[in-house]
């Protein structure tokens, strides 16, 4: 097991577990518990503070939400694939916090049901996806960083805090038209980044083909 400690990340590769006497499953379980423990030590108070600032004192209680996030992660299989445990932890916690927002839960339910009718679905943010599609998630972080302060504030309120346009307007004074325009700009930035990346990949493929 290798442990690499810099300020932000503790990367523990489960696949490099030392060969021990006893079942392989037991070793994997032990490594996983160590990983969760270390995650807990490093990020518990930071996460609670963040949840309290972003979502208020509750209900639900920030500590309960944080606890639930750790439990969810502990229940996951490919926990060792998480390259950026902190980002994933915060993402899971944010999703938990939003479960209490009724209109939001209903909106998601509507979308999931409609897509199911069409034989389609969207994926959740899992460690596996974050690893397999790391360019995509890096894109999210990068585009967010490139937004103006106003755009970022609107994205945080709508997407991360789960506020309605009414609530955002009440707290900021920005009209629904302004809010939706800025959210749209953020989404289009992600689309552009994706198209640009696809274009680059295609160029690479063309070049490789030419060499045959």
């Amino acid at each position, binding site marked *: 097991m290798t442990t690499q400690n810099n300020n932000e990340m503790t990367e523990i590769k489960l696949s490099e577990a030392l060969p021990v006497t006893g079942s392989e499953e037991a070793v994997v379980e032990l490594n996983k518990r160590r990983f969760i423990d270390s995650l807990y030590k490093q990020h518990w108070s930071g996460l609670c503070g*963040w949840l309290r600032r972003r979502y208020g004192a509750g209900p639900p209680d920030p500590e309960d939400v944080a606890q639930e996030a750790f439990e969810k992660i502990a229940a996951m299989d490919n926990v060792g694939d998480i390259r950026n445990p902190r980002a994933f932890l915060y993402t899971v916690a944010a999703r938990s916090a939003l479960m209490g927002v009724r209109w939001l839960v209903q909106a998601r339910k509507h979308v999931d049901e409609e897509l199911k009718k069409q034989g389609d679905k969207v994926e959740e943010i899992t460690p596996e996806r974050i690893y397999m599609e790391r360019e995509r*998630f890096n894109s999210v972080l990068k585009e967010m960083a*490139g937004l103006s302060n106003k755009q970022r504030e609107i994205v945080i309120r709508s*997407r991360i805090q789960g506020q*309605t346009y009414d609530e955002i307007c009440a707290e900021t004074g920005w009209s*629904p038209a302004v809010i939706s325009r800025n959210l749209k700009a953020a989404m289009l930035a992600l689309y552009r980044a994706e198209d640009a990346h696809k274009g680059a990949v295609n160029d690479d493929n063309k070049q490789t083909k030419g060499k045959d």
Partner: protein
Amino acid sequence: MAEIMTPQITTPKSEGDINECAINWVLYLYSGHATKAGKQEHSDWLNQTQDHVNAYVRAEQWWRDMGYVEGDDLEQLDIDGASENLTALHAQGLQSERVGVDFGGRVRFFTGIAATLVFAVVAGLLYFSGISTQSQYSTAIAEVKVITLEDGSSVTLGGSTTIVASFSDDKRYVELAKGRAYFDVTSDPERPFTVQAGATGVRVVGTAFDVHKAVLATQVSVVKGIVNVAVVPDGAWEAEDVTPVELRAGDQVLAEHNNMLSDVRTFELYEVQGWRKGWLEYVDTRLSDVLEEVNRYRKNKITLSNEALGDIRLTMGMAADQTDNLLTGLEAGGLVRVERSGQAVRILPVINAENDM
């Protein structure tokens, strides 16, 4: 407190680009104001063609993935602090933006002429945030970031830098409130691009230049094209006593705050480009100005025990994440003493100088 009007959130129109339409649907459903009828309309729209479904899945997937957060990185944006600007403006005696504007929209004002203009035009408009769109961009300590303005111009921000961009149909205006920025401006003869850093104004048509708002002076360096630089305390270029100086590629000028422009000198590209790649470079620069920039890349700020020390001139370069080299360099040169207590770093005169009284 203005009454919140029931928002007229409507379902998207079916025409136009399919991706935009799908995005509009996502935004409608997650606005918090979707109705049962609206959801049925969404269902019908999905049923129309597989293309609609594919486009919608793409949009919904990005919406969900946009929830991938880093936590503290989002702390830079102090949502509660956003209302401080308005309080300051109130203190300056400007009218509340709610007067005459009954949609509950919020408009920010500049001081002076620009304010009256924006206010007069906005009153009587509904659901409109004002003629000019205004965007603020900030970086954290030691963060260097490239952003793209709505006209396609690209701006590289140095550490702890804030710019406020305000674009309208006939002009592009950026205030460098704090720090240092490199501007690569798209050409648009219809809309001059003006940068204001304190009392220093830089006006361009389309070009690339570096503006560093330091303590004792603002430094403007032109990499490409032509700019006019002038001392314009209120941004009023039309005033009689404003005499702009024209700079071309390779020219650099210092505008001492509230004073005159220095003579134009030439500079080497490496002098102004380094910071964009994490290297801070100084040529005959005063220590106060060096510290202003260096401190934007440090948590433990360096202070001077007296102002006179600020006039010491330096020629040196250092990595932005190794700014302690500045201190060792200064001490080694016998010019100053460095005192550290806890996290504070202070520069003091050498003891001999003080004893020579």
